[in-house]
């Protein structure tokens, strides 16, 4: 049963409609019923006082590894979607890096069932672009899309043969399916654990040069142009990569991009000291790259900011730097970290929220990430000024692997609604 909910006196920001207004929002039947004036005959079962709070569409995260099936020691769909709800995220895309790999409808159905049971967030699985991500045989993309796959990616597994890649793209284009690249040249990145630069040289670690990303971006863009497929580039870390994608879009290609929030805030110098929480792939890049990414943020060079959520069990990070598993948990800090971009006066609050709502929705071409009456009542209500810390006691994610653990943050999610139902409040 869904309730009629009235959200009163909030600052309602809906980037999709260029709306930023102190007003009321009415929810009925799991959908946005009206803004401002209550619809005729509306009787609220519940009132939410959003005075001094921001009312935003629920956030959409384009890359979150939920670890299930196959890696439930790192996290489960239940635990990680609970973390998403606590972070104001109502929709998330999940890479096919499960065990078994998400290249059959059975796995996709299982993920969707588990997500439905948990009921915390909308999970949009990405299908494998090639069978078992081996880069050899096409996956049954059409069937997978019918089961609910939002797009297809080979994650960071290589497709060595450009011919195979062309065929993947042609086949996806045939059915107008979205292809998602997480570009990394496997040979250039082989054995690498951090950005190949001064810090890497000092620490004696193996480097991942920018070219590991830019060469693959260039190859993919040329083949996108040849095949006409709709493509998205996920978690770009190099300024040059974003420029190439932006140029291609200006030439008329159907290409979009997202950046992981950590790459907008941190640099390779953070690795100094071998803290495994900074062992990330794609790696934290140079100050120049970060500046380039931040410039692209201001100039609308990419569409979305994502968490690149990768929770781990403790043991995965308890080893010397290079021997640890890469990635950080990020669902619960995505909003607060993105708010830093506003606090640093890089972009406005509505511009930032666009990168977490309407932007990713446009990448996926879905009717979410907006408060337009009639759309799903996925809503995030937060206090942008309130301070908090993510701690071992309050975290919902199974992973504690983030450098932002016990770090003073601003921006507390107070309510998260999914399809008009409260899935989180505090």
């Amino acid at each position, binding site marked *: 049963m869904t309730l009629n909910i009235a959200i009163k006196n909030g600052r309602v920001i809906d980037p999709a409609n260029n709306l930023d207004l102190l007003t009321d929002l009415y929810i009925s039947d799991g959908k946005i019923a009206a803004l401002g004036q209550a619809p005729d005959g509306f009787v609220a079962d519940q009132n939410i006082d959003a005075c001094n709070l921001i009312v935003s569409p629920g956030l959409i995260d384009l890359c979150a590894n939920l670890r299930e099936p196959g890696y439930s020691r790192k996290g489960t769909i239940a635990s990680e979607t609970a973390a998403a709800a606590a972070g104001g995220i109502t929709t998330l895309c999940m890479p096919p890096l499960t065990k078994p790999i998400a290249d059959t409808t059975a796995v996709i159905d299982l993920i969707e069932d588990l997500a439905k049971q948990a009921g915390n967030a909308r999970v949009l699985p990405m299908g494998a672009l090639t069978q078992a991500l081996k880069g050899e045989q096409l996956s049954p993309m059409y069937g997978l899309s019918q089961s609910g796959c939002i797009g297809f990616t080979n994650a960071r597994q290589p497709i060595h043969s450009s011919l195979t890649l062309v065929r993947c793209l042609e086949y996806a284009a045939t059915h107008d399916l979205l292809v998602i690249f997480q570009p990394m040249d496997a040979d250039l990145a082989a054995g690498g654990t951090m950005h190949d630069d*001064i810090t890497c040289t000092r620490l*004696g*670690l193996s*480097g991942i*040069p920018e070219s590991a990303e830019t060469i693959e971006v260039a190859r993919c863009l040329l083949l996108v142009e040849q095949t006409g497929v709709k493509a998205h580039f996920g978690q770009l870390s190099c300024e040059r990569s974003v420029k190439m994608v932006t140029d291609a879009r200006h030439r008329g290609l159907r290409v979009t991009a997202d950046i992981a929030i950590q790459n907008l805030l941190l640099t390779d110098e953070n690795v100094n*000291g*071998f803290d495994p929480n900074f062992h990330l792939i794609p790696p934290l890049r140079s100050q120049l790259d970060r500046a380039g990414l931040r410039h692209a943020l201001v100039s609308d060079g990419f569409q979305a900011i994502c968490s690149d959520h990768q929770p781990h069990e403790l043991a995965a990070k*308890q080893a*010397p*730097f290079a021997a640890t598993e890469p990635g950080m948990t990020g669902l619960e800090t995505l909003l607060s970290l993105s708010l830093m971009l506003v606090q640093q006066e890089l972009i406005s609050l509505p511009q930032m929220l666009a990168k977490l709502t309407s932007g990713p929705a446009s990448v996926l071409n879905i009717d979410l990430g907006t408060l337009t009456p009639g759309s799903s009542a996925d809503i995030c209500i937060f206090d942008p000024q309130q301070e908090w810390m993510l701690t071992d006691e309050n975290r919902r994610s199974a992973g504690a692997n983030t450098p932002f653990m016990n770090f003073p943050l601003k921006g507390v999610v107070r309510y998260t609604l999914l399809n008009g139902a409260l899935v989180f409040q505090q």
Partner: protein
Amino acid sequence: MFVQQDPNLIQLNSAGQLKHFLTTEGLSREMLTEILDTADSFVDMNAQQVKKVPLLRGKTVVNLFFEASTRTASTFELAAKRLSADVLNLNIKTSSTSKGETLKDTLMTMEAMHSDMFVVRHSDSGAAHYIARDVTPHVAVINAGDGRHAHPTQAMLDMLTIRQHKGAFEPLTVAIVGDILHSRVARSQIHALRTLGATEIRVIAPTTLLPRHIEALGVTVFTDMQQGLKDVDVVMMLRLQKERMQSALLPSESEFYSRYGLTEEKLKLTHPDSIVMHPGPINRGVEIETSVADGPKSMILKQVTNGIAVRMAVMSMAMGGQITEQQAARESE
């Protein structure tokens, strides 16, 4: 965004004394000089008939070699024994900790046996820092080589050898030749030479064997050995691993030798009083001509002798620093 403390400060106790020895980076000139002075006193003792002092009597030193080693492991063992410690040698030759027991579990097991000092060699850069910071901070950790990151006792025995022959570091031009990319020895030498005040540090290698932006560590890069060796006071050769030939880093041993091998001919370009060093084991005819390795300028065996003294010095100093720290901790409780 993150206020970062110098990660190398974990080597020091609250009184500024050495309690671990992980890297030469970030240590003061006074500290490096103290290590050299202490080592000098052990050099004299090691030449005596009775080569033992009771500095580590009753202490247990565990040599944990996760990577094969002959001279480093044996000189550490001898050093510990000459300090009267009880020594346990463990050769755990696994390529990664994922095979069976984790590094953490191995170390914690050893700590539970009331070990007082770990001498650790590991193939992962940062392994010694990891152990000292996260696993067993109350056991003195001596880095016997971690990945490509650091090999501080090797660097200090090189410094001791240089000081014995050259006196002061300030006037010296030093060339480090060979596989800089994969070398923990080179990185530790560079930090030590800079701190001790050498005038110029040169690295000589083909670009395939140079890490990116190595000049940021304060060295001058030469890809031409003839130019790089001109008038240098000290030539420090590095070992070239044979497997580098298979990984498209170099065309062949003979071409490497012709371009970067230290021959009598090239040695003439150096200062007339120059000395030649090599951490061993040497590849004759690949990095160095036999007559140079065995010649009058060669310090190779002297380095081995000094290795024992330097290891005695850092082991006794780090143990002292740990004990001081733990006493202070007990008193404050």
